[in-house]
C-alpha cells in the first residue's frame, strides 16, 4: 500500500465521532496540519483493541499543527508546533485557504 500523503502536504484531521478505542484525540479533530514525515504501517489499533486480529495494517504519519491554531490563548512563540501521530484513515487533503 502506497502512502496517500507526502511530507509537506496540508491535511485536515477528520472531525468525526468514533466510539471505541481511537488514538486521535478530540482536541485535534477538524484541525489543519502538515505532514511532517511518513511513518511505518502498523496493525490498526481500532481493531486490535477488540481482539479482532485481522492483520489490517494502516499507514501512520507524523502531523505538525501550529500551537496557536489549537489554543486561542496560546502565549508561546507563533512558531511553536504540536507534533502528533495520526493514522491515514483520519486524514483528508486540506484546501490551501482552509483555516
Amino acid at each position, binding site marked *: 500500500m502506497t502512502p496517500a500523503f507526502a511530507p509537506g502536504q496540508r491535511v485536515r484531521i477528520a472531525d468525526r465521532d468514533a466510539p471505541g*478505542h481511537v488514538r486521535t484525540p478530540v482536541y485535534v479533530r477538524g484541525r489543519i496540519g502538515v505532514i511532517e514525515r511518513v511513518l511505518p504501517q502498523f496493525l490498526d489499533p481500532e481493531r486490535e483493541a477488540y481482539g479482532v486480529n485481522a492483520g489490517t495494517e494502516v499507514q501512520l504519519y507524523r502531523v505538525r499543527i501550529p500551537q496557536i491554531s489549537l489554543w486561542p490563548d496560546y502565549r508561546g512563540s507563533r512558531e511553536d508546533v504540536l507534533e502528533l501521530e495520526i493514522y491515514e484513515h483520519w486524514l483528508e487533503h486540506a484546501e490551501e485557504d482552509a483555516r
Partner: protein
Amino acid sequence: MTDKSELIVRPTHDMGGRTPGGPVTRDDHEMTPFEKTCHALLNVLDAHKLVNTEEKRRGVEDLGGEILSSLTYDERWAVSASKVLIEKGLITSEELGETMAQVRRRLTADP
C-alpha cells in the same frame, strides 16, 4: 453536542485541552515489587499473543473515570488485562475470584 453524546465519543481518558488541566506532577519512584511483577506478567501475556497492548489500553479506557482516577498506573493495567483474559475465555471470573481469595488468605494468614 449533548452531555450524553459527549460521554460516548469523548470518554474520560481523552483529556487533552480540558480545563482546568492542573499541574503536571513529576514525582518518580523506584518500581515496587508489585509494579515489576505486573509489568513482567503483562509482557509475558503480550509475548504469547494472549493480550496485546491495544487490548490493554482499551480495557483501561473502559474502566471509567472513577476507577481511572483511583487506581495507580500498574493497577489499571492489571485490572484491564484480567478483564481481557475473561473476555477471551482464557480464564473465568470464578477462577480469578478464587485465586484472589487464595492470595488474600495467604497474605492475612498467621506466620
